[in-house]
């Protein structure tokens, strides 16, 4: 099970058991929904952009431990940042899950390095990120519509 303990690192299991920033965000002014049609995983990301800063971010949906933990960790990293910073983090994350190579600086993202040995699971790990980037690109909505949306 060595590959598995590599895949399901403590950081991932912890985020899966106690997801951060999970649920809908009534004050969201950006929202996007993503899914993996082949497996049925669903993810919604709710953002409140204040100027160009992500003031608040939550996610909702259902999926495997990898997808849930990835979305949970992502929300903690994107909060307070800008869209270009989010894209930069995503590029870093994508490199980690596709190559297994981790950056020099210490980052919780490195917990996902084990995913690269399971190519079928890469899309699980990236679902939340794709959805968040789409939310950042999406046109503003009124907070009421954000609260009503969701998967």
């Amino acid at each position, binding site marked *: *099970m060595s*590959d*598995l303990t590599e*895949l*399901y690192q403590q950081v991932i*299991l912890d985020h899966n058991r106690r997801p951060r920033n999970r649920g809908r965000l009534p004050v969201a002014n950006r929202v996007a929904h993503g899914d993996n049609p*082949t*497996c*049925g*995983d*669903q993810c919604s990301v709710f953002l409140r952009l204040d100027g160009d800063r992500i003031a608040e971010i939550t996610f909702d949906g*259902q*999926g*495997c*431990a*990898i997808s*849930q933990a990835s979305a949970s960790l992502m929300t903690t990293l994107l909060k307070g940042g800008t869209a270009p910073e989010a894209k930069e983090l995503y590029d870093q994350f994508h490199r980690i899950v596709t190559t297994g190579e981790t950056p020099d600086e210490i980052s919780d993202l490195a917990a996902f390095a084990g995913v690269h040995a*399971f190519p*079928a*699971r890469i899309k*699980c790990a990236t679902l939340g990120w794709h959805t968040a980037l789409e939310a950042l690109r999406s046109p503003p909505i009124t907070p009421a519509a954000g609260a009503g949306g969701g998967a």
Partner: protein
Amino acid sequence: MLAGRDVRSDFPVLHQKVGSHPLVYLDNAATSHKPRAVIDAVARFYERDNSNVHRGLHALSMRATDGYEAARARVARFINAASPAEIVFTRGTTESVNLVAQSWAAANLRRGDVILLTEMEHHSNMVPWQVAAERAGATVRYVPVTGDNAEHGLDLDALERLLTPEVKLFAFTHISNTLGTINPAAELCRRAREVGAVTLIDAAQSIGHEPIDVQALGCDFLAFSGHKMAGPTGIGALYGRRALLDAMPPWQTGGGMISVVEFSGSRWKRAPERFEAGTPNVADAIGLHAAMDYLDGLGRPEISLHDHALAEAAYAALAELPGIRLLGPAGRRAGILSFALADAHAHDVVTFADQDGVALRGGHHCNQPLMRKLGLPSSVRASFYVYNTPDEIDVLVRSLRRILAFFRA
């Protein structure tokens, strides 16, 4: 051990390790493995007889044509069709359903008509009808799936209300690919006939597992694939009653299906050639023939008993696991067992089990509306075939216990 023979030795692919564990293949509802006899039949065709059919007058073409038409006759015998002319070769169940949903529907479906399906249909026996209905201005109704975990059969009382004279076609699955429910196909066909509805049975999950007799079932159409019944991929068939097939327009056109072509227009051959435009999949039809011989060699009643026994043993063993939700009936069920674990998502289960050499399926099993109704985003499915053993169920249960220990820790 089936019919007193070492079935596993007939299947070359089974004798391998996944990582350091022997392969335990429990994804048979997705596709089954192929016995040596089928692999050899396909290879032999390419080595000795390869040629196009119905066209050449040379020796190889005649052998290829004979092989192809013998396969058609074998399919007719396998399902007790009245004539080989009632067997159209297709790529599989999906193409068979699409053929009817396009050709039959174009000639028979009108505005205001109703197509009746069930909530347990695979997407491939749902989406083609939704498209056909939209094209014709018809509507689609669904027979509900009823009961708690102990049942999950069709609501036959609701059928009474839904099966009105507007229903022109009733299409339903013989065996649910998610629930393992065996539907009372002959009764469903009889009740459809009472209102004059044409019937189509999706036999994808039953053809290789249960004896099938289209005349006893009383169906008008029956669709199936070769690859779930020990045959090759890319070959399947549509059974259709002769009178219905001959009254249907072509759905694909080209070579092989015409009787006369002129610059001003063309005329069609009768069924089944009318529905087989282009060079057919000769090699795999011959492989399918070998698969049918193989299954009848084991005995289909024996295969059915073997599958049911494994499924019931698996149901009983899995029911012991904490936080498990088993789908479908406990008894009288096909060898398809889906379940959800409260503490581990289906994909995590499949990845873990794979590390133990156990091949499972996780997801919505092409049953998205049904899974939504059951309140499950996804489930894990174990499905059995002739080569599976009670020992493999033990391996599955041990693997699942390890997974639960990991995620519950």
